[in-house]
């Protein structure tokens, strides 16, 4: 087990190293000088040179790469070119919006998908199943930004139950914060819930055909008892895998929803940083997301190994 974990760990470090090179290269190679973007069309050459020196852009690329990587290893993500504040504090500030939003959306989508999927599986082929499957089909087809606009139109503009966007801030209380994240969370959660419900249903249906389910029924359990005690529990494995994938998607992929609801989250930070050529911010945030995904994969690998001893001996 230890050998296996060590191997996985080495591959994790290697992936991170490769990712850092690719991210740095791709972002630095794209045309556009951050200094001339900031100073605009009337900037004079000596002013540009002064700013480039101030930002450390006059240093050769290779040196800058190592400074960047070296800094990250010690927790120093550098200083944003445009905002002039440490990138690490910017990311931390934005995390307080993005992370709760992702968790909120995930909770909602699970709360919707579990009952819907179980219900559909238990009513296989009957009108209830067809209705749920139709609804999930729709949920997958509808783009979430369009759905977000509809939510704003109905609940913010017409009913005035929510603000059209913006974030109230946790300092005004948990309720105020959750309230302002509700519409974005619903918009994010629904398409995810639709996918999850379908996975839940098909996983359950697979299991319902297994021999142990028949045994359970033969033992005298009602079909409902068999479904809950043996079916759902076994179906959780594929469902949890999907939930894990969805969480990283929700964290990294809320860029459009954050624009529609003008939330000060990570997605908006990346979006602004890209358009203003704030390279160091883009590089660091992307690197952080890569780190998150790779780490989650690493943990999942370990978990599989813990569950399935064959994996350990084979690698």
């Amino acid at each position, binding site marked *: 087990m230890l050998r296996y974990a060590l191997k996985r760990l080495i591959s994790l470090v290697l992936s991170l190293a490769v990712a850092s090179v690719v991210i740095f290269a791709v972002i630095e190679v*794209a*045309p*556009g*000088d*951050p200094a*001339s*973007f*900031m*100073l*605009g*069309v*009337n*900037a*004079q050459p*000596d*002013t540009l040179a*002064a*700013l480039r*020196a*101030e930002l450390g852009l006059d240093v050769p690329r290779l040196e800058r790469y190592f400074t960047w990587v070296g800094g990250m290893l010690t927790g120093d993500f550098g200083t944003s070119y*445009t*905002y*002039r*504040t440490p990138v690490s504090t*910017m990311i931390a*500030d*934005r995390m307080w919006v993005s992370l709760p939003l992702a968790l909120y959306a995930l909770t909602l989508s699970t709360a919707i998908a579990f009952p819907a999927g179980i219900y559909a599986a238990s009513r296989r082929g009957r009108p209830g199943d067809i209705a749920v499957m139709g609804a999930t089909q729709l949920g997958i087809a509808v783009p979430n930004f369009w759905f977000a*606009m509809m939510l*704003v*139109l109905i609940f*913010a*503009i017409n009913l*005035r139950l929510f*603000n*059209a*966007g*913006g*974030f109230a*801030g946790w300092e005004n209380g948990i309720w105020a914060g959750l309230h302002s994240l509700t519409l974005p969370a619903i918009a994010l959660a629904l398409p995810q819930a639709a996918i999850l419900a379908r996975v839940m249903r098909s996983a359950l249906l697979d299991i319902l055909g297994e021999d142990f389910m028949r045994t359970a029924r033969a033992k005298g359990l009602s079909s409902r008892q068999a479904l809950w005690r043996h079916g759902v529990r076994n179906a959780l494995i594929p469902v949890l895998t999907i939930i894990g994938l969805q969480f990283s998607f929700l964290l990294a992929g809320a860029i459009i929803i954050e*624009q*529609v*609801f*003008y*939330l*000060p*989250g990570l997605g*908006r*930070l990346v979006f*602004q940083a890209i*358009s*203003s*050529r*704030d390279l160091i911010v883009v590089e660091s945030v992307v690197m952080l997301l890569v780190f998150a995904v790779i780490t989650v994969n690493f943990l999942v690998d370990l978990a599989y190994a813990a569950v399935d001893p064959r994996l350990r001996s084979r690698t």
Partner: protein
Amino acid sequence: MTKSRYRTFASALAVGASLFATQGWAQSDITIAMQLEPPHLDPTSAAAQAIDSVVYANVFQGLTRFMGDGSIVPSLAASWDISEDGKTYTFKLHDGVTFHDGTTMDAEDVKFSLDRARAEDSANAQKALFAGIETVEAVDPLTVRITLKEPNGNFLFNLAWGDAVIVAPESIENIKTSPVGTGPYTFAEWVQGDRVVLQRNPDYWGEQPALEKATFKFISDPTAAFAAVMAEDVDVFTGFPAPENLPQFEADPRFQVLVGSTEGETILSTNNKQPPFDDVRVRKAMAHAIDRQAIIDGAMFGYGTPIGTHFAPHHPAYVDLTGNSAYDPEQAKALLAEAGFPDGFETTLHLPPPSYARRGGEIIAAQLAEVGIKAEIINVEWAQWLETVFKGKDYGLTIVSHTEPMDIGIYARPDYYFQYDNPEFQKLMETLNATTDEAKRTELLQQAQRIIAEDYVNGYLFQLAALSVAKAGVQGLWVNAPTAATDLAAISWSE
């Protein structure tokens, strides 16, 4: 008895109603939305207009300032004298002005600010504004003497820019994140990605403004902008990005729509050194191939004023030269044939992100195609535009709105990206800079407008409109945008 009781009840109601009315009257905070968030809050070291939109005249003040009608008035300078030869300006400063951190604003601060802006290692985006300054002297705490190398008729105008505001050496270090100025509002809070909050300055040296607190919100998505105004989450949206929704606000009694003019001349910039654009007949042909009104209607939903030269139509010295480049595709074809391109030619059209360029570019490409010019559309981000078009001059055509006020002088710079090199025009600009007499200046400016119109340097399209939506009760908003600013001191609530 019953009657009097009824009366008491009625008067109680009336008192209640008037209480409500007073409450409405007393609304003393405002939420103002705009599209772009400032990268930081130092107007003296970046070109981003969003910085000025938040801090200009609110947090920071200069010796002079812009008013909503574009006029230049005294700000921190109470008065000034200009020497006979036009080279020495002596400013008398207001007494009792303090910065928000309590330190006194005096002549030394003015000297510090101007010297910093023109220093060797200055990061000022408009350093050229200060290039003509020979020396800045603090004569006494309330007197500053500025000596110029040459007389400069634009000097007081230059000092009104946000890039020329007065800052203090004591607070300069953290100016980007916690700005300290002399204005009627102090910086309170900045939640990055979301809002900047300003608070009324109780120690302000001038008259106390009506609003106590102002929150600037940054909403970049046009649909989100529409929703935020409709849901009344914001009180004002300046630079409203969805012109197609304005009729809806106009029809709604809850809102008012303000349509004004900006300093943005939107032009089809042409690479004057690249063949075939080095031939004036080709440039003239393009001018006649373009239907300005169709572009304004199609790309800007009707908001914008056609122009025939590089000058703002609301300026008193403006000459209407749109007739020079009237829409006439037949003449355009004839001119192209005369220049040796009877079947037209191929070129590139670089389009930066704003909708005036992207939407306008589609229409222009179609109009040029009518006369045989095939313009290949290349969409670029701003950073890329600066690199390839502006610096690299590697382009045929591009569409840009030149938003700096009074920037006809760029036509006197042969190395500027459209590469127009006309010694006659350059000489005219030198004369203009050295002229302080208003009537004479107007005459020279009009001459300059005519020269670049007749040379068809660029395709002059339209003046960008300033579009704002506000709740009906907001008054004092600038209709025009002579510079990027939100003059909070002028704003109040009616009702």
